[in-house]
């Protein structure tokens, strides 16, 4: 699905955007291109500047420096009313004293449409968001999820070229959220409207976005498709923020590979550019750790080790049953104080007869083992 949208024309181009609040820099030299029809997520911890960036795109809080081009037009200093976008806020901001119909019709008035045209369009939108019978109610009479859909209908009523969603699902409970995620994505695909959504929820970003923009402390850490972001994080922050990631102290060994801790045998990892002897961090996701039993099991003969160098004998310190898999804490002298967390399937646990306290062999496959420069905690 990513390739289908990436072919769109360049629609929104942000260059060298800065935003200062007094002495505090909320955005630092942000540049970003967004193509027509794309669903973009700004993802990051709170305070990373993602909402600030969204509000700059909308013109609600103007950037201090830098430019925003939308559809070939420089909109850098235009007020929101002269830009082309629809917006949905976390609070929905539905007008409480107007009926659902009137809320949706609010932006259609004074646009040259007559009353019957507006009524037709409102009905069409209510159908689109799946609430055809709710038009005469007031917002307070609807559930949170329904209100959210009305806010969406109001935002797209005038067919804006750009749809901005500011944490649209955060105020909803988990079940509704999962359901609406899917619906919003569906709707966006149907309308083909370029969409920017701000979220701090990585699952939301991974499931909905064509492209994720990971932000931290006012800068963009990485831009990429959900799979890229997950499988090939550009740096330790992205690796750590999205999904779970084991971080083990390690030492670079030139072109040959890396050592876990200071002096384990050399293991191979994804390509990297560290000088020999540099202290680094080796990272691997729990689900990428491959179990190989303890060398005594009969099934070992059928168990093929991919990278014979990347094998460690570990102690199974603790096992936690999480339903569809087991989460295991593995210890090894090279890991130092950190434990290696690995998710093993129920099958693997049964096959290798894994138990707490036993020793076992695990493989950290070369293509899944990443190396990052160490970051001083700040």
């Amino acid at each position, binding site marked *: 699905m990513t390739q289908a949208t990436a072919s769109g024309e360049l629609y929104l181009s942000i260059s060298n955007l800065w935003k200062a609040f007094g002495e505090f820099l909320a955005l630092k030299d942000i540049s970003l291109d967004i193509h027509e029809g794309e669903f973009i997520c700004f993802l990051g911890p709170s305070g990373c500047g993602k909402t600030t960036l969204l509000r700059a795109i909308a013109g609600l809080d103007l950037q201090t420096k830098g430019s925003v081009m939308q559809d070939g037009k420089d909109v850098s200093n235009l*007020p929101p*009313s002269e830009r082309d976008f*629809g917006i949905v806020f976390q609070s929905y901001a539905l*007008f409480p*004293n107007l009926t659902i119909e009137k809320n949706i019709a609010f*932006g259609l008035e004074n646009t040259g449409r007559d009353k019957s045209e507006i009524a037709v369009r409102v009905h069409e939108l209510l159908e689109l968001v799946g609430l055809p019978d709710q038009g005469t109610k007031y917002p307070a009479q609807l559930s949170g999820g329904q209100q959210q859909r009305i806010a969406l209908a109001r935002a797209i009523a005038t067919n804006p070229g750009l749809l901005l969603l500011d944490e649209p699902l955060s105020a909803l409970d988990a079940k509704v959220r999962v359901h609406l995620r899917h619906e919003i994505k569906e709707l966006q695909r149907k309308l083909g409207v370029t969409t920017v959504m701000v979220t701090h929820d990585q699952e939301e970003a991974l499931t909905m976005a064509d492209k994720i923009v990971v932000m931290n402390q006012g800068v963009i850490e990485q831009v990429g498709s959900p799979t890229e972001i997950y499988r090939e994080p550009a740096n330790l*922050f992205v690796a750590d923020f999205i999904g779970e990631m084991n971080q083990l102290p390690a030492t670079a060994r030139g072109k040959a590979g890396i050592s876990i801790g200071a002096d384990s045998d050399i293991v191979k990892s994804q390509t990297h550019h560290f000088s020999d002897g540099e202290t680094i961090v080796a990272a691997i996701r729990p689900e990428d750790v491959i179990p190989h039993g303890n060398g005594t099991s009969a099934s070992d003969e059928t168990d093929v080790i991919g990278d014979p160098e990347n094998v460690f004998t570990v102690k199974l310190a603790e096992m936690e049953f999480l339903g569809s898999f087991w989460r295991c804490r593995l210890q090894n002298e090279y890991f130092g104080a950190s434990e290696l967390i690995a998710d093993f399937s129920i099958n693997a646990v049964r096959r290798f007869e894994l138990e707490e306290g036993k020793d076992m062999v695990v493989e950290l496959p070369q293509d899944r083992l990443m190396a990052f420069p160490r970051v001083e905690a700040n």
Partner: protein
Amino acid sequence: MTSPSTNISSMPPGPVIKSKLSRDDVIMRSGMIVIALYLVVTLAFPLYAMLSKSFSTYRFELSQYEMQVSDQDGVFDGAILNPVDLNAATGAYSDTDLSAGSDSRLPVTQLFPDFSFRSPVMYQIRNAQPGGRFLVGSTLHDDTEWTTLDSNSFRRVQLRPVKSTGFDNFVNYFSTPALFNSIKNSLFIAVVSTVVTVTLAFWFAYALNRSCMRFKGVFRLIAMAPILVPSLLPGIALVYLFGNQGMLKELLFGASIYGPIGIVIGSVFFTFPHAFLIISTALAISDARLYEAASSLRATPWRTFWTVTIPGARYGLISASFVVFNLVITDFGLPKVIGGQFNVLAVDIYKQVIGQQNFEMGAVVSVVLIIPAIFAFALDRYVQSKQVAALSARSVPYQPNPNPKMDRIFLIYSSLVGLFIVGILAVCQFAALIKFWPYDLSLSLNNYQFDKMDGGGWGSYYNSIKLGLITAVVGTAVIFFGAYLVEKSKGFRVGRSLFQMIAMLPMAIPGMVLGLAYIFFFNNPSNPLNVIYGTMAILVISAVTHFYTVSHLTAVTALKQMDREFESVSASLKQPTLKLFSRVTVPVCMPAVLDISIYLFVNAMTTVSAVVFLYSPKTSLASIAVLNMDDAGDIAPAAAMGMMIFYTNAAARILHLIASKGILRRTQAWRAR
């Protein structure tokens, strides 16, 4: 990670992006500027005029002039006479005679003991320096040319005083015991009234919030009644009760009601609702969990009261104290009616301005009065900002448990307070209906024939209603729209915070002071706005400005509860902000809008101090009529008029209640689920 430095200096130099203003931005900013200008013109400028007046002194400078006198044949011998020497020789004017007001004139013939307007002697006079001023008839001479006059014309020479700026007025004020004693008096009655009112109101509010006594609704209604009458009405009732021919005069054991006793009792009456409201709110938000904790720790009720109840209500108590203090010290009507020889600051202003036409001294007293008023106001704001922080706790409302003995005590106490309030009003109504107290006790409506009395007659009553309605409509529109602009417009931060500050100022300025300041500012012939002087317009402006702050705060509180993103949504939908304002903001805030309008109406009906300097014979008001009729000795008609204000305000309240219910049913239908 490649995060660049967080230092602001890492941002490249160059101009900051300035937003292109949308049409809405322009409309909202100009609207805000217009309303801010309104406040500056109706508040800051007049206050400045008053302040500068208080520092202006006028004095006749005899050394500024030179004179010559001819012999009997009209021939001058060239000898130049100095009026200072002449005055020293004749003793015509003492030093105090020479200190003056801005309009004073001084005749010169008294400097010549043998002056006769029939004599053939000729006189010459000139200013020693340019800029000196004297009048011949009505012609002003301010050059240094000699003017030759026969004795008949010399009679019509009058010297004009010289204006200088300095602290002389204040020195004068503080060296006159009759004047500065009022400071002590004012502080005394304000402190005593505050202690009494806050104590009474606290137990009353406590009874209503923390006991299970009966008739709470009735008591709440009674407690609010004094708000509907001018502050001088209890004074009239007290005259009937304890005056020289009072019904209960003996209860005072020879003490006179005219003086501090009367002022304090009356002040307790008219400040009671204000204190009650504030303390009641403070008691209502107390947290039940604290009481559960206290009882589980086996604290005695007495200990619980001092460790939980009082600390919980302390901000309310402090705030109520400042409000009552401020109301009492700035009140004019009540001490005017019942103060007798006991001078207080607010009445001094009136006496200086109306009685002695000494505007400079009036300004000085005003400045003196502003100081405690601003002080109390500032402390109150400070305490209230603290209370907001205390409110954010997620508390459980306290539910009182029945306690037959305590409930009975509270019922008796509340009944006594209620009797006091109802009694005062009843005495006024009774007085209004009696033919001639205490000699002819038959009932009649004679006292309602206001047209036969001094004070403007029924016309002033209708004027009051007109003033109340215009103030309510215009004031609500201006204040609510101003609050909206300030709360919801984007950017323009300095302008907005400046506006907020100016909007807080009226509350700190006593009505008398505002009125006097208006005289100085609007009655100045060189002010193009002086056309409104003496019209209904200046009364409306004065009322709106005087009651601006509370209304503004009500509006701001309501607006803060609106979603901050409505304006953003509206802009993204390319709809004008004013459409949002009229379709959404006003309907949703309708309860607050109605509250502001009734507040303005009731206060415009009852205020005396804000309008006493500003009414003209054509725009006399009911509250002023009460004052003037009382002043003229027509106390019964004054009581009758006061009760007319009460009934009108009560009716307005009921109407407001019915109208609110109707309007709210339409505009607030969305509230029902």
